[in-house]
């Protein structure tokens, strides 16, 4: 029972999820490029961002625009802290060590939220200005959907301009490609890394808000799977490529939504499994991803 309207509706949902994955993948790929770190703690920032906005917007009554700016700042700060406290000491170590430590950080933050905030999920009401419903003949959507798409595109555009046109941005790409040579150029690598963390974390925290506003619920464990899926998006798009991360995000979002929408209903619950199935397939068949640079994925 194929209907265009259903297809378009689901495609839109896929694009929206894709926007979120793309934003997360962006932050992850820059850090990964420089440090070879699969930063599981990235997912924790989604949770932090969501709850942060919850408290300052719903509880403290700060207006929406200000809340959004604040969450960007807060997220950036958290990212900076994470880098300074943990990852700095492990720099240059084997990748597995970095990964495990980031898992430790993720678990810490997740359970911290569980302990200090709540083990129960919170309802996240879509702010009134973003809950306006639009009905067309083919699609039904809310202004939050437009907001997500527009803000994501703006962020991605800003990010791209940054890495392509600014001195610091080019330095970041250079450092991601070859850290040692970047040092030879006199680039302060530590500053570049901190900046990468700040930017990625700020964006991730913002994504937490997007997620809450769109899906209506936030919980202490909301970041884990999403964070890992963001890494899947990075792999699908091609490790080491910034445009690849964004493309990977959209591809993954669409694949996840459309596969569950169009497979027989009993397959809907296979959603997460499908995402990881895609990961394993990509790693095995086309490790460089869609746009990636050859990295030694296999031994």
């Amino acid at each position, binding site marked *: 029972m194929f209907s265009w309207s259903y297809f378009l509706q689901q495609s839109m949902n896929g694009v929206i999820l894709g926007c979120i994955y793309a934003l997360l993948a962006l932050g992850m790929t820059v850090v990964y490029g420089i440090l070879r770190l699969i930063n599981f703690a990235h997912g924790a920032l989604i949770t932090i961002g969501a709850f942060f906005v919850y408290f300052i917007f719903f509880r403290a009554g700060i207006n929406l625009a200000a809340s959004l700016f604040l969450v960007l700042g807060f997220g950036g700060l958290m990212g900076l802290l994470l880098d300074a406290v943990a990852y700095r000491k*492990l720099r240059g170590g*084997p990748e597995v*060590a970095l990964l495990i*430590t980031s*898992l430790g950080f993720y*678990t810490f933050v997740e359970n911290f939220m569980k302990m200090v905030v709540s083990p129960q999920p919170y309802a996240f009401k879509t702010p009134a200005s973003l809950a306006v419903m639009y009905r067309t003949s083919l699609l039904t959507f809310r202004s939050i959907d437009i907001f997500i798409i527009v803000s994501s595109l703006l962020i991605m555009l800003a990010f791209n301009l940054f890495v392509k046109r600014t001195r610091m941005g080019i330095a970041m790409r250079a450092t991601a490609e070859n850290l040692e040579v970047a040092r030879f150029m006199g680039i302060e690598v530590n500053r570049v890394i901190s900046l990468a963390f700040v930017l990625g974390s700020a964006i991730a925290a913002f994504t937490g808000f997007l997620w809450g506003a769109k899906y209506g619920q936030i919980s202490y464990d909301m970041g884990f799977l999403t964070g890992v899926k963001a890494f899947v998006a990075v792999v699908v798009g091609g490790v080491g490529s910034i445009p690849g991360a964004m493309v990977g995000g959209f591809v993954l979002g669409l694949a996840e939504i459309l596969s569950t929408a169009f497979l027989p209903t009993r397959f809907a*619950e296979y959603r997460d499994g499908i995402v*990881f199935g895609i990961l394993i397939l990509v*790693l095995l068949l086309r490790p460089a991803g869609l746009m990636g640079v050859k990295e030694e994925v296999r031994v």
Partner: protein
Amino acid sequence: MRKRIPTEWYFLLWGVLLFLGVFLANQFLNRYLLYILVLMGIYSIATVSLNLTNGYAGLFSLGHAAFMAIGAYTSTLLTFPLSLREAYELPMLPTFLGGPDAVWPFFPALCMGGLLASLAALLIGAPVLRLRGHYLSVASLGFVVIITTFAKTMKSITRGPMGISAIPSYTNIYWTYLWLFITVYVVWRLVNSRFGRAIMALREDETAAQVLGIYPMKYKLFSFVVGAFFAGVAGGLYAHFTKAIRPFEFSFFLTFQIVVMLILGGMGTIGGPIVGAVSLLALRYVLKPLEEHFKIYGLIEIIYAVLLIVVMLFKPEGLVGRRKDTRRVLLGGKSHG
């Protein structure tokens, strides 16, 4: 000058002492303490088997929970009492497994669980073990998600998210420590043999090992499969101990706990994993009343996470691990060119 490898007699002595210890514990300790001891045993089996793959072979797998899940569900389904099968909407056993009237006894069921886990390891291992370092970890993590997804969706076999309860309570302290003994013995034998030297050589420098004629895949796969077997057994023991299993219990967090136990205890020795498992479980049960009293749920997990971070930052070889064995995997002991 190598240290003398303990001989089989040494092992036998340990076995006798262990049996005595278990016997005495069973006689004199109260139920709660026995409960904790059994859990320590089960987690020790899981950690020791993980050490084979992650520590000795240097393949950092995060997939252990998946194998435990397979073992748990398999042995549960094989031993589930006939009378309850209909009530729980669980299938009868097909003829080749003994027919609809059959119910398997405990030991074979556990072995079957382990075997099926090994089979899964063989299937997933062939492609995944070729991946490097952290890609292997992420892929194995994906495997855990895939298995739990299956557990949640194949309702006709697994009862989906509700899980299976009223599992016959076969696990006791004797079974547990018997299996721990077997696991440790097998791992010890493997590690102190030609096989063991080969996988450690592979761990240190794969290219050099290949030049010596050691085919990576064969050895990696073997350690992965053996590790999975005992993980499956641990899963089965767990199922028949807690009497109920649900998919979400075999999530990433279970793997995480075992990984923390392994790293805390130390990856390079036989005893390390056991030390890690015992310490962390002891810690858990000391803290549990605190958690419940103050209603601070998540405290134990936070402490686990903090311990992991602290160990990784300051003492990656763990409590009793050997630096040289941890070097390659966690410290990256590459020589400079």
